[in-house]
């Protein structure tokens, strides 16, 4: 089976923050927006918008690197790769909130909050888990489902790049896509 992943095209992003709100909803206990915003420990988004020159938005999320610098920096082995294939997922019950992962991550995609997965801990690392539960159930990641502009897509990288190659070929030969 081809492995799909979230592909980001920042040039298409309009900064609507839908990916953030739907990400938080997808990681809530209730999964419904109206109830999620009333949970005791609020779920947090795992995709973030950076602000570039002239207010240009920049959607930013975990790349699920291999090898992953965050994982290598994590002493209690809280960043696991045995939960879903190809995904680096924080296990909040193991995380001690030391922040090493965030220092090691070159993309600034980790944040620290109290998490319903380990409510006794004041603050643990929170980051993208590839929406592995949704994907296992046949859905696509919540951020991709929310994005109306095509800035986020869920695809197999090489297929996606192949399509890009074809677009480029058409552009070079002057054919309108």
């Amino acid at each position, binding site marked *: 089976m081809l492995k799909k992943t979230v592909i980001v095209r920042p040039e298409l992003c309009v900064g*609507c*923050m*839908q990916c*953030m*709100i*739907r990400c*938080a*909803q997808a990681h809530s206990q209730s999964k419904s*927006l*109206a109830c*999620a*915003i*009333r949970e005791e420990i*609020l*779920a*947090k*988004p795992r995709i973030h918008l950076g602000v570039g020159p002239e207010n240009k938005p920049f959607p930013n999320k975990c790349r699920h690197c291999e090898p992953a610098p965050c994982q290598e920096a994590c002493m209690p082995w809280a960043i696991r790769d045995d939960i879903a294939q190809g995904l680096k997922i924080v296990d909040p019950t193991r995380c001690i909130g030391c922040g090493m992962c965030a220092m090691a991550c070159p993309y600034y995609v980790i944040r620290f*909050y109290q998490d319903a997965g380990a409510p006794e801990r004041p603050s643990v690392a929170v980051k993208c888990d590839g929406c592995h539960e949704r994907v296992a159930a046949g859905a696509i990641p919540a951020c991709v*489902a*929310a994005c109306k502009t095509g800035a986020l897509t869920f695809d197999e990288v090489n297929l996606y790049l192949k399509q890009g190659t074809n677009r480029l070929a058409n552009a070079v030969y002057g054919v309108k896509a």
Partner: protein
Amino acid sequence: MGKRDLSEYSICKDAQAMIAKAREDGVETVWDRLREQEPHCGFCELGLSCRNCIMGPCRIDPFGNGPQRGVCGADADVVVARNFGRMVAAGAAAHSDHGRDLIETLLAVGEGTTADYGIRDEAKLRRIAEEVGLAVAGKDAKAVALELAEQFFNDFGCRRGSISFIDRVPAKRRALWEKVGITPRGIDRDVVEMLHRTHMGVDNDAVNICLHAARLSLADGWGGSMIATEVSDILFGTPTPRTSKVNLGVLKADQVNILVHGHSPIVSEMILAAVHAPALLAKAKAAGAQGINLAGLCCTGNELLMRQGIPMAGNHLMTELALVTGAVEVVVVDYQCIMPSLVTVAGCYHSRIVTTSPKAKFTGATHIEFDVHNARQKAVEVVELAIERFKVRDAGRVEIPVEPVEVMTGFSNEAVLAALGGTAAPLIEAIKAGKIRGAVGIVGCNNPKVKQDYQNSNLIRECIKRDLLVLVTGCVTVSAGKQGLLMPAAADLAGPGLSEVCKALGIPPVLHVGSCVDNSRILQLCGMLATALGVDISDLPVAAAAPEWYSEKAATIGLYAVASGIFTVLGLAPPILGSKVVTDLAVSGLEGVVGASFAVEGDPVKAAELIDARIRVKRTALGLTP
């Protein structure tokens, strides 16, 4: 429309068949577009986005992570309240501007400047004029019409203390409104004031904004909408019981089919007059048609159904599908709830959309503008266009999927009282005896987010089972009618008490009382019952529900029901959940302020249980059996 099963979209056979045909014909419908939009904007869904100025637009993060205030400093409560206030104002504006158009017609009749319209119920004209304090003795109908029109115009401004029909409100309710400060002052005034208050930097207290929303909704319910109802009766006749038919089966394969869609009777009544003109019938026959068939959609359909027994082709979600039959020559529209997509759908067949109002033009439609001076002539043009379109109809693409179902209609308050022998006393007796445990107004729209007609029709079934008399208006009329619930035989589905009363009177357990502005008839009836019993409306064993609502107007109706003291169950939540203050006010706090509140429940059985529990409490408090 994806691969979802047809039964997920609608419980109606005609809808299912036409959705399948739309797929085959490559026609995009409301359900396709909903799918494209989902998931919706989460901020807007919660009411947490603000576009009221260009320091913004702003969003409040409901997960507490991002911004908690707009650029101006407005928090979630203020943003939600301002948005909701504007929503209610838009709904009140729509109903009331429709009401104003009727007053303009009444004025033209009074001034003698129109030959096309007249007074069909002079007794009602005189009765209403007297009710609002005009001296009518010795004056002819025109003079009374003129004075009444002027009186009603004044209700839109603010020169007097309050609106004309304020005396229909029971004394206890009026005193409560005075105490809370929500007595409506003027229809336009209260709507405009909401726009003012929600400008940046005016009203920044969520509760204060919501109370004004309540006031302006009352200006609609007891003002703009009530005027629309009463003047429509004066001009076109007060409805009396009659039977007719509903669903797409009312279209006729061998006739020119014209549908009226929109809200006001001003245009649709003229179309009705034109389709009976012998010259046009002759033209239709010459074009190969057996006749000219007129049917309604949405509320202007309700207006014609109530007064003239004209059949109804469908409700909100049937408007595109009616065109997909391929059998519709022309849809004549006035305003409100007309999906802009109709022009595109019509373009996939031989159909034409005809717009008639200068305030509601649709790019790509045929505009034939109606006014009080030319209406009859313009209606003839519309029918002629329909006959021309009939000639190019492709019979191979026509599919009329079902046989029509019979409905009983026409239950104006006047008709109900007449059936009861002139007074509400027998109704009150039946309520006291527990044969009729209470009454529920089930009103509102369709919404593609829920299975069409499922919640509307099943809530009705659950209510009548519990001996609750149901009154329907608007799109719920068709939901009920298609399921056979608007016929006296439906009494067999009612509880024993209600069934007995219905059978004795020969009426259905579900009474069709009109269009959406005619919810004012329900208000008036509640006012009469409360006054007769010497109590407040909030003491009555009554409730309201809008199970499949979609529109700003429905939000206004819900709020004026609650502000009038009627517990109201909504099938879908309004965009207020982003604010705890506003949500708590809506679902509980209002109870302590106006004696009623909202509930949100999408399951018809659970909604009926909420209504039932409410009615038990009210009956017990009145010293009746629960």
